[in-house]
C-alpha cells in the first residue's frame, strides 16, 4: 500500500539533558495539509519536540524527515534553505526588540531574500492586515504592543513568507479568553488560506479542539494517545481523560 509521504515525520526521537530523559522514543507523522495539536503537561517535552522538528535542537537518536527527506544532519546553509518551508510562532512571540514591527514581519524578506526595503515593507503591511493589525503599528517597536498584539505580529511574521509547515508553540498562553479565541481563529484562517500543514503545542484544550484536526497526547517522553480531535472526549484512556478534564486525581501525579 502506497501511503502518501508525510509532510513531517519524527521517528524514534530520544532526547535527554544530563540524566533527565525528556523524549523517550517519540513518533509523529503529519500528513500534508493536516493540523496536529500536541497536548501534554508542563515540562513533558512539548517545546523540545517542536525544537527538534524544526532543527533548533538535535535528537540524541532517531530522525526528523520533511517531505520524506531526512533533515536531522544538515549544514548551516542547507538548514537555512530547509527553514524556508517553516514558519513558527514562538511562545513569547520572540519579536526582535531592536527592530520595528514591519522589519520584524519582513525579516526573512529583508535579510535572507534581500528584497528591497520598500517592497518588503508593503508586503509586511499586507501581512499585518491579515492578522487584523493596522498599518499604524508598522513603525512601532515590539515593547509598544500588548501581548495579544505581539502574538498577532509574530503570526504575521510566521506567515509572511508563505511557509509549507506552520509551528505554534502555545499560541494562546498568557492571553485573555477573548484574545485567545481571536488568535485561534486567525491560526485556522491562515492555515486554510496557505493550505499548509500545522503542528501546534498547547495545554489549552479549547485551543486544541479549535485548531486541531488531530490531537496527540505526550506523556513521559512518549506519544500515549493519538486520534481525531473529535474523539478526544471518548478515548477511554484514563491519562488523556484526566488531562482533558483538568482533574487533580487520576493516574497522572504532577511532579514536584
Amino acid at each position, binding site marked *: 500500500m502506497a501511503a502518501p509521504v508525510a509532510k513531517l515525520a519524527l521517528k524514534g526521537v530520544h532526547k535527554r539533558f544530563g540524566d533527565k530523559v525528556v523524549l523517550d522514543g517519540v513518533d509523529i507523522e503529519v500528513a500534508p495539509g493536516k493540523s496536529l495539536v500536541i497536548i501534554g503537561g508542563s515540562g513533558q517535552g512539548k517545546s523540545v519536540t517542536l*525544537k527538534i522538528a*524544526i*532543527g*533548533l535542537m538535535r535528537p540524541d537518536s532517531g530522525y526528523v524527515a520533511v517531505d520524506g527527506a531526512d533533515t536531522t544532519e544538515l549544514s*548551516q546553509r542547507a*538548514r*537555512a*534553505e530547509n*527553514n*524556508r518551508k*517553516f*514558519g*513558527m510562532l*514562538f*511562545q*513569547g512571540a*520572540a*519579536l*526582535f*526588540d*531592536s527592530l520595528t514591527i514591519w522589519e520584524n514581519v519582513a*525579516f*526573512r524578506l529583508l*535579510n*535572507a531574500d*534581500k528584497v528591497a526595503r520598500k517592497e518588503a515593507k508593503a508586503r509586511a503591511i499586507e501581512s499585518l492586515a491579515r492578522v487584523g493589525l493596522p498599518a499604524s503599528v508598522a513603525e512601532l517597536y515590539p515593547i509598544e504592543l500588548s501581548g495579544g498584539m505581539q502574538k498577532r505580529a509574530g503570526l504575521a*511574521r510566521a506567515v509572511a513568507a508563505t511557509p509549507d509547515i506552520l509551528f505554534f508553540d502555545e499560541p494562546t498562553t498568557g492571553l485573555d479568553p477573548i484574545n485567545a479565541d481571536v488568535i485561534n481563529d486567525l491560526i485556522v484562517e491562515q492555515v486554510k488560506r496557505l493550505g499548509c500543514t500545522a503542528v501546534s503545542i498547547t495545554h489549552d484544550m479549547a485551543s486544541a479542539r479549535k485548531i486541531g484536526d488531530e490531537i496527540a497526547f505526550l506523556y513521559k517522553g512518549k506519544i500515549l494517545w493519538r486520534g481525531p480531535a473529535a474523539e478526544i472526549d471518548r478515548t477511554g484512556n484514563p491519562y488523556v481523560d484526566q488531562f482533558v478534564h483538568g482533574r487533580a486525581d487520576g493516574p497522572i501525579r504532577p511532579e514536584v
Partner: protein
Amino acid sequence: MNPVQAVGRSTLGFLRQAGAVVIFAARGVAGLLGPPFFFSQFLRQLMAIGYLSLPVVGLTAVFTGAALALNIYTGGGRFNAEQIMPQIVALGITRELGPVLAALMLAGRVSAAIAAEIGAMRATEQIDAMETLSTDPFRYLVAPRLLAATLTTPLLTLVADIIGVAGGFLVATQSLQFSGPIYVQNTWNFLTSWDIVSGLIKAAVFGFIVALMGAYHGYTASGGARGVGRATTHAVVSAAILIFASDYVLTSLFSGKS
C-alpha cells in the same frame, strides 16, 4: 572529592570551555569571509562600539597621562632625570597604557552590552526565531560585532594615545615648568612609528577579545534573567583577563623589535 580529582575536573572543564570559545570564534570569523554580510548591522556596531566609547576612553586617557607624568617626574627626580619625563610618558602611553586602558574600558562598556543584548535575545528565543527565518545568527549578530570591535579599538587607542600625551603635557606645562614647544618636540623626536603601531596591533587583538567574550557568553547564556546577569559578569571578567594575558604575550613577541 580528592584534590587530584578536583584539579583534573577543573582542568577538563577549562579545556572544554577553551575549545568551545575557539570553535565559536572560528564560526564568527567564517561569517566574515563570504556573503551575506549585514552591512547595516556593522554600521550600527561601529557607532555603538566605537563612537559612543570615545568619551569614556578620552577621560580615562587624560587622567592617566596626567598622573603618569607626575609620577615619572617625581621618580625621575631621584636621580636627576626629570627631563626625560615626556619621553617616558609617551612610551608608556603608546606601547602599554593607551591600548590596555582603552580595551579595559571597552571590556566594561562593550563586552557587557553585547553579552546582555545577545543573552536577552537567547532567553526570549529571538535567536531561535532568527534561525527559523533562514538568517544565520553568527552572520547577523556575531560577525558584525567582531569586525566592528577589531577595527574601532585601534582608532580609539590612537585617540587615547593623543589625549594621554596631552594629559602629560598639561601637567608638565601648567604645574611643572616644562616649556610647551620643547615638550612636544622631545616627544615627537623620541617616539618611533613602531611604538605607536605595536600599540595599535595590540588594540586590534584586544578589540576582537572584547567582542568575542561578549558574544560568546551572551550566545551561550541559559536560565533566564539570572543567566543573562551571569553571562554579563563572565564576559567582562574573562575579557579583562584575556586582555592582560594577551598583552603580555604580544609585548614579549614585540620586545625584540624597536
